């Protein structure tokens, strides 16, 4: 890991609210270029909320989120997306009234360098066969593939992925793991929210552990098996 390279995402003292309830209390972390960083934690720890806050989808947020050195804390969701940050939500966000292909083509191209439709179909061959089906007619695994696939077209190089393995069969989890590793070799910077520590440990460079809307632990070298085991024990305690 190169400690001196500037962070793509630099989150400092991030607070977030759903309506009146204060759910994020000072979250801080960094994501460096080309790295895959995970946010771990139990249900309700604030992982998904952190991604939503970064995307500008919370009712209210405060603190600082630098994306490529630019402050985005006051920006609207659509402006943040246009700077090259892409978001794949926990519920996958597949549109029922759109076909698979329409879902795929929905996010507008934001910059050059996005994957072409052909390259996407090579990475996700299932989607090509089903391109005329309704988006939500796909299986859970295929919907997850679609949710990842459609943000690759936009040219965004920094991805926020919210629990891409949730509720999926082990064989599909394996496929998604392969896709995520492939994305890493292609140079994408990825912030991954995960509960599946085994999955996370295989793909991540660093972990941050959240609890009650705060970062409680940072594991800078995700490869250290004993630390990962400790986290696994903590999460399942």
């Amino acid at each position, binding site marked *: 890991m190169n400690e001196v390279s500037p962070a793509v995402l630099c989150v400092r003292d991030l607070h977030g609210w759903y309506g009146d309830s204060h759910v994020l209390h000072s979250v801080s972390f960094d994501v460096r270029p080309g790295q895959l960083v995970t946010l771990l934690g139990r249900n309700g720890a604030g992982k998904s909320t952190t991604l939503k806050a970064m*995307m*500008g*989808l919370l009712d209210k947020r405060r603190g600082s989120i630098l994306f490529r050195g630019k402050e985005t804390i006051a920006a*609207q*969701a*659509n402006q*943040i*997306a*246009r700077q090259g940050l*892409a*978001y794949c*939500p926990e519920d996958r*966000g597949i*549109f*029922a*009234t*759109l076909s698979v292909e*329409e879902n795929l*083509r*929905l*996010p*507008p191209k*934001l910059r050059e360098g996005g994957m072409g439709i052909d390259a996407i179909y090579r990475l996700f061959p299932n989607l090509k066969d089903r391109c005329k089906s309704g988006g939500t007619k796909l299986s859970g695994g295929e919907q997850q593939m679609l949710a990842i696939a459609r*943000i690759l077209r*936009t040219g965004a190089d920094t991805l926020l992925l919210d629990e891409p393995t949730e509720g999926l069969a082990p064989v599909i989890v394996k496929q998604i793991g392969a896709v995520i590793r492939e994305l890493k070799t292609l140079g994408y910077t990825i912030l991954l929210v995960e509960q599946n520590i085994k999955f996370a440990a295989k793909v991540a460079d660093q972990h941050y552990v959240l609890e009650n809307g705060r970062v409680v632990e940072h594991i800078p070298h995700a490869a250290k098996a004993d630390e990962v085991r400790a986290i696994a024990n903590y999460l399942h305690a």
Partner: protein
Amino acid sequence: MHNILDTLYNLPIDAFMGQLMLGLINGAFYAMLSLGLALIFGMLNIVNFVHGAQYMLGAMMAWILLQTLGINYWASLLLAPLIVGAFGLLLERFVLRRVYALDPAYGLLLTFGIALLLEGSFRQKLGSSGQPYAIPAELRGGWDLGFMYMPTYRAWVLVASITICFAVWYVFERTRLGSYLRAATEKPQLVRAFGIDVSKMINLTYGLGVALAAVAGVLAAPIYQVSPLMGSNIIIVVFAVVVIGGLGSMSGAIVSGFLVGFVEGLTKVFYPAASSTVVFVLMACVLLVKPAGLFGRRA
């Protein structure tokens, strides 16, 4: 049953067809209006109670343009929707936008209040009786089809409304712009997170829905009287049409618009006394069998 058959046998065919044609013409207006309502409800989640008044504004604008500036029907067909649509854009931007976060009842009451204001001010100025609007010279007369007499203007309204409905449906269901609209109807927040300015889309959708009501108003001006209350008479039926078609469904709004017009026409032939209630009976029946409406995706 005996009575109905009697009526049918004794009815001259051209009177029967004439009633059906009247029903279809009404249906054309129901379809255009419920289409705009469905579009607006889908994007804004607001039941646009001012829709009838906006339809009235379209007709009224055509009448005013003619009276004050001598602007003819064809120019009004373009100008009136633009003016009324622009009013819609401002209304959404500065008024409606404030109630999205609140309970839907606020949107309903707000738009209902605006409808009362609009209708009240025109009634104050012009009285509640209607003003005639002449059929444009090119569309006067009609054809004798053998089984019925077909006034040219009514044929024009039918063709124009079907074309407009089909165009709106096509854009919504089959184009890229339409896929944005459908997506924003389903999950506006996520569409924002893809870099799309949903607020602007909502604004334009409202403007389009209002312009659609105004086009219907201009088309209606030579058929019905141009009166301040013409919208409030039709809008209740149109709401029933939207419910029958399925809230938020474009094709449902169009099909059930024509269907309701057709059924009303039939009822006028067989049992005229029920012709203004039949739509609500139809609504109740549809809701009993399909609570989400004929084309509704989910209850």
